């Protein structure tokens, strides 16, 4: 197991280096940082001095090494727009995005997996078909339309739930959480559903098709022929085998939820990283954009590693093969 994880970690380092190279390339090739930083009346000499101070005249390799070095030390530099340290800006925003992502993942799993099992086992049922049709509609409508529709229905017409912002948050150290106050939880509902609908459908359809495949395998037929009761066949034998491929998809989805919560955050004015990224694009705030890129890549890498380890726990074939080598 240790060798397996070390191997994965080494691979991850290479992935991160590649991404940081991309992020670095953003600096070099999207606009001139000095031109963005200075005002119109700054003299050419001043600009040149600034360029020298910032090390922009050094060879590319030196600059890249410096860039990676400061990233590793946690020094992310300053935003062009707000002049704040980027590390602080991201830390301030990250809890909002993570909480939104986790809640929508939980919604998609807690509804998607049971619905997938149900529709797999009751293939011809009226309810199963109804679920399939409804979720097909759900996946066909773009996220922002669903968001706007939910705002219109529950926020404007019924007035039950808040339609923007995080509501009341409780501070635990630097982490501001929505989970500990009623207002915070209420504010979380609509954006989490909006973000989760697509993932929910995907999870459900994956679980359904995997489960149907597994139900047709010999070992399930054999289990039924041995008279094992159907509950055990479905949940102990079939579900576990179906989950092996589903976990990969769920892992990738969670990365996607965090990285691409931009649309939802913008519809609900959710003060998370997505909204920060959107503002940065608007003001060509290149340092923030490149750090965002690196952080999202890091999140993906961590999730992939987790998925690999989960595989390891679930599937004895992977586990024993790795131990054997």
């Amino acid at each position, binding site marked *: 197991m240790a*060798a397996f994880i070390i*191997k994965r970690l080494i691979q991850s380092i290479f992935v991160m280096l590649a991404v940081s190279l991309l992020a670095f390339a953003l600096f070099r090739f999207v606009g001139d940082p000095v031109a963005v930083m200075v005002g119109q009346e700054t003299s050419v000499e001043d600009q040149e001095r600034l360029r020298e101070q910032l090390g922009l005249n050094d060879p590319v390799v030196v600059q890249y090494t410096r860039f990676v070095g400061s990233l590793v030390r946690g020094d992310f530099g300053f935003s062009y727009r707000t002049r704040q340290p980027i590390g602080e800006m991201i830390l301030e925003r990250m809890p909002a995005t993570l909480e939104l992502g986790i809640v929508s993942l939980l919604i998609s799993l807690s509804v998607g997996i049971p619905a997938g099992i149900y529709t797999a086992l009751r293939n011809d049922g009226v309810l199963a078909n109804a679920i399939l049709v409804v979720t097909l509609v759900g996946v066909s409508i773009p996220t922002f339309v669903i968001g706007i529709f939910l705002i219109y229905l529950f926020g404007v017409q019924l007035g039950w739930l808040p339609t923007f912002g995080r509501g009341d948050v409780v501070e635990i150290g630097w982490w501001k959480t929505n989970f500990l106050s009623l207002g915070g939880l209420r504010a979380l509902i609509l954006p989490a559903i909006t973000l989760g609908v697509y993932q929910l459908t995907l999870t459900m359809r994956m679980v359904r098709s995997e489960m149907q495949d597994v139900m047709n*395998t*010999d*070992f399930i*037929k*054999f*289990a*039924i*022929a*041995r*008279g*094992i*009761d*159907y509950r*055990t066949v479905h949940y*102990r*034998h079939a579900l*576990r*085998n179906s989950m*092996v491929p589903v976990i990969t998809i769920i892992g990738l989805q969670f990365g996607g939820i965090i990285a691409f919560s931009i649309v939802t955050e913008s519809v609900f004015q959710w003060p998370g990283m997505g909204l920060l990224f959107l503002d940065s694009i608007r003001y060509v705030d290149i340092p923030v954009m490149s750090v965002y890129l690196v952080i999202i890549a890091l999140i993906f890498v961590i999730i992939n590693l987790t998925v690999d380890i989960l595989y390891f726990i*679930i*599937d*004895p*074939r992977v586990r*024993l093969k790795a131990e054997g*080598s």
Partner: protein
Amino acid sequence: MGSLLNVTGLTVRYPTRFGTFTAIEGLDLSLEPGEIHGLVGESGAGKSTIGAAIIGLIQSPGYIAAGDVKLHGESLRSLSDAAYHKLRGAKISMIFQDPQTSLNPLLTIEDQLVETIRQHSDASYGDARERAIELLKETGLQDAEARLGEYPHQFSGGMRQRVVIALALCTNPDLIIADEPTTALDVAIQKQILALIRQLAQDRGVGFILITHDIGVIAEITDSVSVLRNGKLVEEGKTAQVLGEPRHDYTKALMAAVPRLDEKLDRFVNILADEPALATPELQWNVVGASEQFASDWLLKGERPTLADGPVLSVRDLDVTFYADRPFAWGKKQGTRALRDISLDVLPGQVLGVIGESGSGKSTLAKAVVGLVRPTAGSIDFNGAPLPLGRDRPRNHAARRKIQMVFQDPYSSLNNRRTIEEIISEPIRFFKLAKSRAEQRRIVASVLSLVEMPQRAMLKYPHQFSGGQRQRIAVARALVARPEFLICDEPTSALDVSIQAQILNLLKELQARFGLSILFISHDLAVVRQMSDQVAVLKNGQLIETGSAEDFFASPKADYSRQLLQETPSLALIARH
């Protein structure tokens, strides 16, 4: 009337879009405790459906339309779903064909055995575990106690099938339906598993219904047998009597199609004339000028090998090692030696039969000759000149045309998205063997005639054909390259015996006509006997024995060969019953 099981007038139907399909019609069957009853027939005969009907697991939308199944005199048809399910395992159990897929890969065998035992009794976990160990010992699993915690993939095929049998037995059922229980196994293991089934029937009085397409297996262990065809019972009775003195023409034809291990026949006396009246528009559609004669002339017109004295193919000290991925970028590569120091010759116009069990390296040998696998050492000479190995062999190397291959599985060796014409004409286009499109078309149609297919087949797609027809198409594709040397890798192992007989006859015919040299690979000794002039026996990548086929089958030199010959189920066994 059997005191264990009585099936009367069983009819199973499947509604389809094109009307109702009757899978089983009016079948009667009876079984005594301790009796082994064989169900034999070719694919589509409905053997597995009978098994499913008895255990009450017919795939939806199929249903039992008429008849009754009685166990110990009690009708099962009137049972509710829940009551029937209680019966499964407790009274009736099942063994499936492929031990690779019939165990849950995520649970240990302890989990699976204990779960099944406790499902049907109030045994405590400890008692159930004890019983599981006993059963595994009884089914011949060494150090059962130590291996209980292992997962299915840690067992070999034969051991897994023993675990499967232990699982079927652990609830003390009265009846076990074994659906092709040894088809996926090598002969040596097949022999052990069959002996185990025999012994369980004797010692425990369990009744077995043994479903198989292999008449050798039927001859070896069954007491009585039912011969089925298209869902109907053809003939039924004591095994020795049915196989020894078959009354029905179908049984006779089936027996004649089984390759014999004890003597080599010139051709199989076949053929089950069941092809529904072929004098249809199918046969009247012809390409102008295309005929079997044209194909024959065209194939002979190509440069034929002048039957030289020396071997066509000469393999010397061939070594193939496969490397697994390294655990780390700096780790040492772990290799498996698939072939070691193999030297053999194929003489011009002769057939070399390569015999071996799974994992013996016979397919690797074929791949090395055609250049799909790169040998780690050794040389391959073709017509006296060394062949470049692996990828070093250029695409336009003469041997790429002269050596052609027919693969085992006709379902995956033809591209389903292309018409038969496109498939067969590919070698013609690639090797530029035709001057015009019209000529190309005529060749394709003619070669189809040569392999006894209607010419119209060229307009269709592979999925419209049966396994046997597809294999004919695969042979046609190999032939149009005008090869001198044919490699057949288990060309009939996916086919029914009657179809196998047809394909083997076809290969013999073509070989005689065009003076082809053939490397014929098979695990089936009887098939090899019918096809080969020379044989080579492989085991774990090593050459055990090589020599003239007749001498080999009369008196094999190596112990391993003798053992193989002895373990192969043979029709000669009927005499012993």
